[in-house]
């Protein structure tokens, strides 16, 4: 009884109350402790936890960027994007994965290895990650899937974009091809690494690789909310990516395709260039392959077939193929000799079919000999004996300077193609450095007819011809049509101005530039005396358009199409005395031992615009195998000039 106020009860009461008070005090302290904890979590560390909470719930999904296109000079798409039908499955959203896969296998006729690969891939990835069942369904398959879709819960038919090369193998050596991203791509290119998503295709060679950064485009980004199990709940936003830059080429598809046709079943190369603007109008290497094969992974059989082809379709012969130029070097040898005042054009040499020098016999291609030859005639009929004499007088080092000035021994397109080869124009210094041997005079003679150490690629001969044909002015070739491209009229008037300005004073500046290796300025004259250039061009004209000229059979009489050229026949092995006696027909010689056929040309002769170089590997003689191709090409080329002029890049366009 509390109210009885007995001592013990009072004592008990005060004990209870005292202890309650102590405990309540403790409670108050603890209460503030909890509030303090709440404060520290919700106020002090709010930012941190807010970030963590966003990290929990927000996911980004990056979609493959849309790749920029390649267009030819006329705006036709030569590497574009095509609608691709794909089939995706998100395993998490599938009720019965096994059943679905068996059904799909049935509908799409998947073979068992593909099927097993898909199952393995599924087991490796997270259940909410998309599994790509097929990257490239045919329209039939796609519609079939859509037809059965109600039975295929979890299967998602998707329409996306993929690379497409409408001209198949025509552009392969220019553009290269795209394929799945490899580990190397990721290591070497940060842009690819940043934008990599499953299904991304990147350039593996050619311009596709060179312009990767501009072509690749930016990813579209989808942000969406996921729940604790990673399942998408709703989309928060969609950031549209930017399509890669569209790149316009200087190439004319009509002509490019025609070169493919002309080189069909042959190994060889054709390059065509505008001699004033440096625009490459066609650049082809044969054989080629269809780059579309690489988009979704090439099958092994096809790949081996391409790789083992003796005609080497994987090599871009125009840039990476190195050959002896043969007689196509003769215009430069002649020019060098004239420029250095080594010979007079009237110098006469008697060709008897061979010449003894330094205890060795040097043969002319014409066994019976050409008889009394002048320089012009020697070029026209490609007399080897005459050029032995010219090069003996000239010496290899002076030839080296002229040849390099006109484009041999240097990369033509610079950094555009990593696989471009420099070739070699020998000199006494080069031989000392590279081989630690002194130069033999006999080697000079062979160099003078384009054999021996000298090695060129077809594009180098093309630019050499261009720089002769434009009157001897430096040009820098390009394959990209953009705001930096030259305008034909501008170049022409500039060149005319240069010709007048080419005084001794300017020559000094030029010599300094050369000495400092700053590279020769565009459109500066490469000659000392313009008459020498004219002389060589005239000799080339005669070679094609006069009787006894080596390419006379391929001439066009119509002045509109009339062109000038020089043949070349490059030996691939040393001709023995026995070979000379046998004098076999081309088809009797094993393919590998047949000569390479060369032809370089420019036209139309009256008002030159284009230069070209043609190579037919193991094609035999230049006049039979290469020159007839030029005849066909000049017709098309000149017929299309008007169209091309209309499409001329105007500065205002850009």
């Amino acid at each position, binding site marked *: 009884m509390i109210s009885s106020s007995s001592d013990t009860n009072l004592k008990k009461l005060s004990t209870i109350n005292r202890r309650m008070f102590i405990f309540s005090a403790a*409670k108050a302290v603890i209460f503030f402790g909890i509030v303090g904890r709440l404060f520290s979590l919700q106020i002090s560390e709010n930012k941190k936890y*807010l970030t963590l909470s966003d990290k929990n719930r927000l996911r980004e999904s990056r979609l493959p960027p849309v790749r920029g296109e390649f267009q030819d000079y006329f705006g036709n798409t030569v590497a574009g994007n095509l609608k691709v039908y794909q089939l995706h499955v998100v395993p998490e959203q599938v009720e019965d994965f096994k059943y679905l896969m068996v059904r799909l296998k049935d509908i799409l006729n998947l073979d068992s290895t593909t099927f097993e690969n898909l199952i393995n891939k599924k087991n490796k990835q997270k259940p909410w990650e998309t599994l790509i069942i097929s990257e490239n369904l045919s329209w039939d398959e796609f519609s079939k899937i859509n037809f059965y879709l109600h039975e295929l819960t979890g299967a998602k038919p998707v329409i996306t974009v993929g690379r497409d090369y409408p001209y198949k193998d025509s552009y392969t050596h220019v553009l290269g091809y795209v394929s799945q991203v490899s580990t190397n791509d990721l290591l070497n290119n940060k842009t690819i690494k940043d934008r990599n998503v499953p299904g991304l295709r990147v350039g593996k060679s050619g311009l596709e690789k060179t312009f990767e950064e501009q072509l690749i485009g930016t990813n579209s980004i989808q942000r969406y909310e996921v729940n604790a199990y990673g399942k998408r709940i709703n989309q928060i936003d969609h950031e549209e990516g930017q399509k890669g830059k569209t790149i316009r080429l200087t190439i004319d598809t009509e002509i490019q395709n025609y070169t493919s046709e002309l080189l069909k079943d042959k190994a060889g190369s054709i390059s065509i260039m505008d001699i004033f603007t440096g625009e490459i109008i066609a650049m082809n290497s044969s054989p080629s392959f269809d780059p579309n094969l690489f988009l979704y992974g090439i099958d092994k059989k096809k790949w081996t077939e391409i790789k083992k082809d003796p005609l080497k379709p994987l090599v871009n012969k125009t840039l990476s193929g190195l050959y002896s130029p043969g007689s196509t070097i003769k215009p430069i040898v002649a020019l060098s000799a004239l420029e250095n005042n080594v010979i007079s054009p009237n110098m006469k040499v008697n060709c008897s079919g061979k010449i003894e020098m330094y205890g060795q016999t040097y043969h002319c291609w014409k066994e019976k000999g050409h008889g009394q030859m002048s320089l012009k005639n020697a070029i026209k009929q490609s007399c080897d004996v005459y050029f032995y004499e010219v090069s003996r007088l000239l010496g290899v080092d002076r030839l080296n300077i002229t040849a390099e000035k006109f484009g041999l021994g240097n990369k033509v397109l610079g950094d555009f193609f990593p696989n471009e080869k420099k070739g070699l124009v020998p000199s006494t210094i080069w031989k000392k450095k590279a081989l630690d041997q002194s130069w033999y005079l006999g080697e000079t003679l062979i160099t003078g007819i384009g054999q021996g150490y000298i090695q060129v690629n077809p594009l180098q001969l093309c630019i050499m011809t261009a720089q002769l044909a434009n009157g001897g002015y430096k040009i820098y070739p390009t394959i990209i049509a953009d705001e930096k491209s030259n305008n034909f009229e501008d170049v022409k008037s500039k060149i005319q101005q240069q010709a007048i300005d080419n005084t001794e004073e300017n020559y000094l500046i030029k010599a300094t530039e050369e000495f400092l290796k700053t590279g020769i300025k565009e459109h500066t004259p490469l000659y000392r005396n313009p008459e020498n250039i004219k002389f060589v061009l005239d000799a080339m004209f005669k070679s094609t358009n006069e009787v006894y000229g080596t390419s006379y059979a391929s001439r066009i009489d119509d002045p509109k199409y009339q062109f000038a050229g020089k043949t070349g026949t490059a030996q691939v092995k040393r001709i023995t005395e026995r070979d000379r006696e046998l004098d076999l027909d081309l088809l009797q010689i094993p393919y590998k031992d047949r000569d390479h056929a060369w032809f370089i040309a420019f036209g139309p002769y009256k008002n030159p615009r284009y230069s070209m170089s043609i190579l037919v590997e193991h094609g035999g003689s230049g006049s039979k195998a290469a020159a007839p191709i030029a005849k066909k090409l000049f017709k098309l080329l000149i017929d299309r000039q008007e169209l091309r002029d209309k499409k001329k890049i105007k500065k205002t366009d850009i």
Partner: protein
Amino acid sequence: MYQRFSYTNQLTFFQKVRSIDYILLFAILLVGIVSGFSMYSIDGGSIEYYTQNHLLRFSVFFVLMLIISFINIKIWHATGYLFYIIALGLLFWASFYGVTASGSQRWINLHFINLQPSELMKIAIILCFAKYYHRIQIHNVNSVKNILLSFIILVIPIFLVISQPDLGTSVLIALSGIIVLWLAGLNIKYFVYSSLLLLISAPFIISFLKPYQKLRLLTFFDPGKDPLGAGYQIIQSKIAVGSGGLYGKGFLKGTQGYLEFLPEKHTDFIFTLFSEEFGFVGSLVLLILYSIIIFRVIRIGSFSRSFFGRLFCFGFGSAIFIYILVNMSMVLGLLPVVGSPLPIMSYGGSSMLATMIGFGIVMSTKIYSKQLIS
């Protein structure tokens, strides 16, 4: 005025209604409403399973509380031991025939409700001790016989609950009992001794724990160790509370909640969900509501003229405080994860039933504060 009724237990209905502690009643009602909103959020912004069940229980048990409060406290005093024995019997029943869920056998299937006797025991132990120490003279409290008996009363249910296994509830039962023992005047030295004993034997106790309990203990000390496994709950819970900020993400906008990052969000981790949506301010309001409830309960105890009423109210008020403390400390990462619901807020019938019975007896103490118990 009190003189007139002080010695009679015949109060009119009107008098009873007038002497209800309306502040306490209103505070309980408010927490009930808040819990309704939380359940509504759990149901994804509509009145479905959780909201319906929870509000139904709250309403039924709220009425039950009022009925209990109108019954003379003498009755509750008289049935104190009985209540304990029934609860103990149910615990035994659960141990042998109970329903097993998520590895623990702690429920009895009563068909309309799955009863968790350990929750009832949390109240029964207070009631039992309040009755026991009501009569014992202060100088007898520390006698060997009394201590031994109290110890037995306390240990049997604890042992039963631990073996279910349910560490959380057994700790809460132990604390509920101990608090009454402390209030009753048990010598402080016993508390000191048993604490020391507990500390020394802690390694042995830990070795008897189930693997998942050990893991919880370990992850408490280093939640980052296994962020996707055992540490997941506590990390996600802290993220939810922390990301709430000052005013919260807004009602029905707690991303941690509706995207299912929060485990057990409707029961033990309900505060996390609430705190994410209503922020620091909301949490503070809820804490203040609980403080008012505890304060009123203790205040009622201090006006009671019987030791029983006083001990029960003090004990129950303190127990409520401990439940809240343990739950909050757990969800805020201050204590290891043990199962302990937040009174009224958490979804769960048995916990709600026990809590409301407790409040009912407290209110009965208020209405019959002048009642003497022999």
